[in-house]
């Protein structure tokens, strides 16, 4: 194929529209993606960013509109064709094959094996190692994907795109589960790929990342493309106004809540190989942050408290009473709620209705005596939908059809309905748009003000600083700091979060 003139855009989308069952989620989108640019897609949850990305990658077919690649009209009927055209989509939800090894996932669909059907394992493993080295990520490529952290899985997805030498790489919220260091690595790689003349589409809800990385931004709202601009020409306020159509309310720290008795007390909690001697308490009305790097063991502590993977020693007390929680149902009965970080695996029932997903943790409320009261359930679910502004077509829609952020809101809704006295939130705002985030912070504040104890696990420092009365920091399975609100700064949290061994090297 003859390369087109230098100023022909790599992709020229014209009038792209997409409907799902008569609901139009994208309307007449015109967009040019230039060669050698990093192009951000911004917009609220459900604005249509992922849908547009999936159309480019052949996952969905547009209902109307045309695509040109280097000036030539193209049809992209499926992901295989997209791959052949040099378009790779890194999905919002990783869709790797969990039982295959990292190396197998990386070369999947590329190698054919020898005529005898033999797979060149040694070569495959070597190539996979090289790719991961390129990313600056250290991992055992022969291990199955299943055992990896989300961050590592995401890295494998990115490496897979690199492996297939794509000229358009679309990253749908790639940074959400990554540590700052991993984000830096990713950005460095993205810049290098851009400088090689490739095009990168970057979807994120974090403005500072978009600003740091991208050349141009396109803002979606409600399925319409609102604007495409050089990033330098827009202020944050401009972008937010374009995204949500109104100025953003600034979040203020919660109005002083009455701090009460200890609601959750954890002493010397230990799970060998994961975390050791973790002790802390959370009082009623208090929001305690739990910071640290991805992989520091924060999620494991939460899972232990909630009874998903109980600790082997140490004690947990709820409202002053020592409890032995062996499974989540007991935790829920004691007034605990846990919004887990991995929505796809431990959160949603993908093919079941939104309604059923929202009410999954309150069987007694929707089914007194065991028989489900449809009207009651519908009332509770639609109330939540309104409160959290979940964007959907119908409560009966499978939750898998909602946008990522809206799925997250539905899971939050599930746990808020249990009316917990202790609420553990694990990266709750991952994938949630800026507008809702502010409201969500307000809601957490209100929950605390209502006498609930809240443990907030978050990798976003500004979130911890804005919301929490106290910030605990974990590093390598141990609690390394307990910082009062007055002393909490990004530096204080980061220095406690960085593992000792690395600190020594840095010093």
């Amino acid at each position: 194929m003859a390369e087109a003139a230098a100023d022909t855009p790599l992709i020229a989308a014209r009038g792209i529209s997409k409907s799902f069952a008569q609901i139009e989620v994208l309307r007449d989108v015109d967009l040019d993606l230039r060669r050698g640019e990093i192009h951000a897609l911004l917009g609220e949850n459900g604005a249509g960013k992922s849908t547009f990305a999936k159309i480019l990658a052949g996952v969905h077919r547009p209902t109307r509109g045309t695509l040109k690649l280097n000036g030539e009209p193209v049809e992209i009927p499926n992901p295989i064709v997209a791959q052949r055209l040099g378009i790779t989509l890194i999905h919002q939800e990783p869709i790797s094959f969990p039982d295959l090894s990292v190396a197998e996932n990386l070369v999947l669909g590329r190698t054919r094996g020898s005529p005898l059907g033999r797979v060149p394992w040694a070569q495959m493993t070597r190539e996979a190692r090289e790719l991961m080295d390129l990313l600056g990520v250290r991992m055992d490529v022969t291990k199955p994907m299943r055992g990896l952290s989300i961050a590592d899985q995401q890295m494998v997805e990115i490496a897979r795109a690199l492996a297939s030498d794509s000229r358009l790489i679309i990253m749908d919220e790639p940074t959400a589960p990554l540590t700052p260091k991993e984000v830096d690595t990713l950005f460095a790689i993205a810049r290098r790929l851009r400088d090689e003349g490739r095009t990168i589409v970057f979807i994120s809800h974090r403005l500072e990342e978009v600003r740091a990385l991208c050349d141009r931004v396109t803002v979606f709202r409600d399925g319409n493309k609102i604007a495409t601009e050089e990033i330098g020409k827009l202020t944050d306020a401009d972008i937010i106004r374009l995204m949500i159509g109104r100025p953003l309310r600034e979040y203020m720290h919660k109005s002083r809540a009455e701090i009460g008795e200890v609601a959750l007390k954890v002493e010397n909690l230990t799970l060998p190989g994961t975390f050791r001697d973790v002790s802390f308490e959370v009082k009623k009305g208090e929001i305690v942050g739990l910071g640290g790097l991805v992989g520091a063991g924060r999620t494991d502590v939460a899972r232990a408290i909630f009874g998903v993977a109980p600790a082997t020693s140490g004690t947990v007390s709820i409202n002053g009473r020592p409890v032995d929680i062996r499974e989540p149902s007991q935790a829920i009965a004691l007034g605990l709620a846990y919004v887990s970080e991995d929505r796809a695996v431990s959160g949603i029932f993908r093919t079941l209705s939104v309604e059923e997903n929202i009410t999954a943790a309150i069987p007694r409320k929707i089914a007194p005596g065991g028989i489900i009261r449809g009207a009651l359930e519908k009332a509770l679910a639609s109330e939540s939908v309104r409160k959290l502004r979940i964007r959907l077509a119908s409560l009966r829609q499978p939750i898998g059809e909602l946008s990522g952020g809206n799925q997250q809101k539905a899971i939050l809704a599930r746990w808020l309905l249990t009316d917990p006295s202790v609420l553990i939130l694990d990266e709750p705002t991952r994938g949630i748009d800026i507008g809702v985030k502010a409201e969500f912070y307000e809601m957490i504040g209100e929950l605390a003000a209502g006498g609930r104890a809240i443990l907030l696990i978050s990798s976003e420092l500004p979130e911890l600083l804005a919301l929490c009365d106290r910030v605990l920091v974990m590093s390598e399975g141990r609690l390394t700091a307990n910082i009062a609100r007055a002393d909490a700064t990004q530096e204080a949290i980061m220095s406690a979060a960085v593992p000792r061994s690395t600190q020594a090297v840095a010093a």
Partner: protein
Amino acid sequence: MTDQTSTPTAVSALDAAPPRPRWQVILIRPETMTFVLLVLAFIVSSSISPYFLDINYILSSFTLYAEFSIVALVLTMVIIAGEIDLSPAANMALSACLFAWTYQATQSMPLAILVGLGAGIAMGAFNAVLVIGMQLPSIIVTIGTLTLYRGLAQIIAGDQSIRLPDYFIGINNDLWLGVPVPVIIFVVVTIALAFFLGATIWGRQIYQIGTNEVAAQHAGIRARRIKFMLFLAMGFASAVAGMMTASRLGSVRYDLGLGGELQMVLMAMLGGTYIFGGRGTILGTFLAAWLLSVISTGMLTAQWLPATQLCVLGLLLIISIVATNLIYSRTQR
């Protein structure tokens, strides 16, 4: 184009967007396929043999399949929960053998029934302990116990038939309002289980477990307990079915219900139950049971060779699995 987000009531999205049209929802249900097949099967078989226009003939020929059909209803729930049980036919044989053997030894019918039911439940419990307690895959476990239970039945009964007292024999000829009793039992169990699965919270949780067991556990659903109960229910239903079969046949041999697991799985699959769990309905299996009865009886009246009949059933099984898979992967998008 009106701008929805700028209005403060963002719920407008809820009212603005209509759900899928009703006809589409109904058309893509796999039970619809089952129903269409059932109608087709009726048309074809009544053109082959005029017997099929007689409702009494249809009802009485269904008594041959009623026992398997009842167990298939419970099996449907097990499959929806993401497991499988291939041992029920063997369970039927062993519990019926123990039942008949106890009767022969003690001449006490209540005691014999108690032993039969107890044995069935115990076999279900044994499966459950292996699958849920020891976390072994249910397909392997129940292939193992299928062989084990059938083997034990043969040890207990030998190659003899154990006779049963006259008053116990012939449940299939007992009529109630003109309908054979096994058919009535089947219909009653269908209604009860359809209600259980469709309207109670436990039924709902069975679907949730089959859809995503990890998420179910996180949501406080006692997945292990519910699955345990399902295996027990399987054992109980198999024992009842075993005794119904014994009554129909008049005596018990170790090969009672041989090959029944194929028919039960076939009924569930033809009824649109998804082999990987999370989807399926009692109504589907109910329709599929009639479908299978009509097809099998049709093949019998047409005097097809048993081997040919088996091939047809095997083909049907494969076709139904492929078809439901297709339907579900389409709605998944």
